[in-house]
């Protein structure tokens, strides 16, 4: 259990460091990494105060506290993946919208230009 806790703390700290470094290098928006910071903090808390895991494991009739830790981690990650799906969908929708708007606008622009050209040559012909 001690080794596991040390491992958990070390890896969480590494995660936290890595996450913060990616902001300092301007690779990610702060809004998108708040989750990872919270995630790392939860893992560190679970590692430093294993009583939390033990308590809930007992209340919920888990065989071992570690199972609860695994479950929490898996659950949070699944939640994250789901939210990412939503985000990707929204991004695709926004992109589709933008491409369509742009194309429709440029099509209308060409038609307007063509109409004016035709009118101009018509007027020119009359003179």
């Amino acid at each position: 259990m001690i080794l596991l806790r040390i491992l958990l703390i070390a890896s969480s700290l590494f995660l936290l460091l890595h996450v913060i470094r990616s902001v300092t290098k301007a690779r990610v928006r702060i809004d998108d990494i708040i989750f990872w910071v919270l995630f790392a903090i939860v893992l560190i808390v679970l590692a430093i105060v294993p009583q939390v895991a033990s308590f809930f494991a007992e209340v919920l009739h888990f065989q071992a506290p570690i199972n609860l830790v695994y479950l929490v981690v898996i659950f949070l990650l699944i939640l994250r993946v789901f939210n990412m799906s939503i985000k990707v969908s929204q991004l695709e929708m926004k992109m589709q919208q933008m491409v369509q708007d742009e194309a429709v606008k440029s099509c209308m622009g060409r038609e307007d230009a063509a109409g004016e050209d035709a009118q101009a040559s018509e007027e020119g012909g009359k003179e």
Partner: protein
Amino acid sequence: MKLLVIIPAYNESGSIERVVNCIRDEYPQYDYVVVNDGSVDDTAGICRRNGYRLIDLKTNLGLAGAFQAGVKYAYENDYDCAIQIDGDGQHDPAYIEGMAALMQETDADIVIGSRFVEKKKPGGLRMFGSNIIATAIRLTTGKLLRDPTSGMRLLNRRMIREFAVNMNYGPEPDTVSYLMRNGAKVEEYQVEMRERTAGKSYLSAWRSVEYMVRIVISIVLIQPFRKRSTT
């Protein structure tokens, strides 16, 4: 001094006309630009019918993206300073003159329209969040910011450039704390703010809890490690 008023507006059809007309008619010395943040109501239509200067974002980018669009406009058009005035009418443009004067006087990078320079902060739940953020900024920068959540911020030319081109420069208290830590001069100027008269705030009830968590984590755990690259 060439000054641009940036008016971010998301679903502000109920108040945008009053806000912009006020600036256009009573303060013609300032230029303004409305940034419509992909509103689903008639905000963009109202602006077009009235002939307002409008940056019309086709999709919703959020306040940070909308504000940055306005700052980019200021940067491209070589403005000396730019101020955010919200589309809901809570910021009174009458204070712009005093804020700009303070900026010139003190050579500040940012002047914040603050509710609590001379007036005492009221207690209660609404100011609870403001107090937590102020404490977080105090802890990480050692400096006092009385009204960190005020959106009424005047940026000078250096700041316009920095806000226009960089990532993670949202118009939020965490950006201000980061800039304060990294040598930007921030001043506060006493203003009164009105209660919003129409429309919904960017921050609804649950959202404001999320907002707090985001801002506090950012100020305490992220911003202290950020280095300011541009000069």
